[in-house]
């Protein structure tokens, strides 16, 4: 994970904010993976059917992206049986939760910076 926190005294110039954007955690930044983490961060465990419905991803994409998150150590995937039917359970790990939280704070700060820049540009044009 390579995310940075925006702290007081950090570079908030356009170049600094660009640098911030470039240091976003790329594993989390991909929209499908972000959606998976968002759902998993809100429950202890969810199954494939719910994750599929909540994220709106295709079955193939969900499997592919969740495998990438598992490889990064952000989620765990558990295979089990509901009676005789095979099922898959997904859980976010502590590492994944920390990465998601850091990303979320990062992206929120970045969004605010973009708004600030936009506002200052408009006032200077006026």
């Amino acid at each position, binding site marked *: 994970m390579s995310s940075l926190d925006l702290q007081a005294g950090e570079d908030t110039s356009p170049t600094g904010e660009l640098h911030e954007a470039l240091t976003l955690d790329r594993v989390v930044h991909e929209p499908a993976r972000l959606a998976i983490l968002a759902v998993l961060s*809100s429950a202890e465990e969810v199954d494939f059917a719910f994750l599929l*419905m909540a994220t709106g991803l295709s079955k193939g994409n969900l499997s592919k992206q969740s495998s990438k998150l598992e490889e990064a150590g952000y989620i765990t995937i558990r295979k089990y049986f509901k009676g005789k039917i095979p099922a898959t359970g997904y859980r976010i790990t502590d590492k994944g939760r920390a990465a998601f939280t850091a990303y*979320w704070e990062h992206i929120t700060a970045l969004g605010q910076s973009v708004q600030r820049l936009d506002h200052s540009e408009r006032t200077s044009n006026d």
Partner: protein
Amino acid sequence: MTLKGDSVNTDYRQSISEMQDLTREYASFSQSRSGLGNVLGGVAGLASFAVMWLLGRGVATAILTVGLTFAWLVGKEVIRRQLYRPFGEARETWPASLRRTHLGVNAFIGLVCAIGGVVFAVRLATGTTPWSVALPYLIFCLITPWIGWRYLRTVNEFMVGFYLLFASAVVSAGFVPDRLWLVAILPWYSLVLVVLGLREHRQFQDLAARLRGLREVTA
């Protein structure tokens, strides 16, 4: 609530937050909210009270009270699985504070039941209490901690559940609990459970409609 592109915009962040809210709400029906399961508990509580009040002590009262208690315990889990998981399973995250409270309450119940269990086992072994009286209490002491741990999650469930289990033991031993006590506790908590359950069920219906809408958008 689809995710298109990776721009840092408000809609995008709102979509993620909404996705989290819907998941949390849906998952709450796996643990802390029972909906119609609560209504069933309330009805079982009120019905067992009415049975004890109207029939008094006897085999019929014992059968009906025990039957209503177990019908609720089984029924609420069946309702949870059949009615509140139409979009798959999502298990609620239980905050550490609630986990500790649940553990504490169950540890207390376990301790009380262990003491009671030993007392009734000794009485049964020494023949000081007839088995028809001691056995129901002994069974109550043995199964209540497990039922509390496995099936009772909220304060209201504990109140009604513990009371129904205790009432089952008392009526099975051939007695009827003190009616004033019943009037004070059981009907009130049963009514609370009915009202709460109906409100939760309406909330789930709204949630299900939102999730169905989401499924149509993403299909």
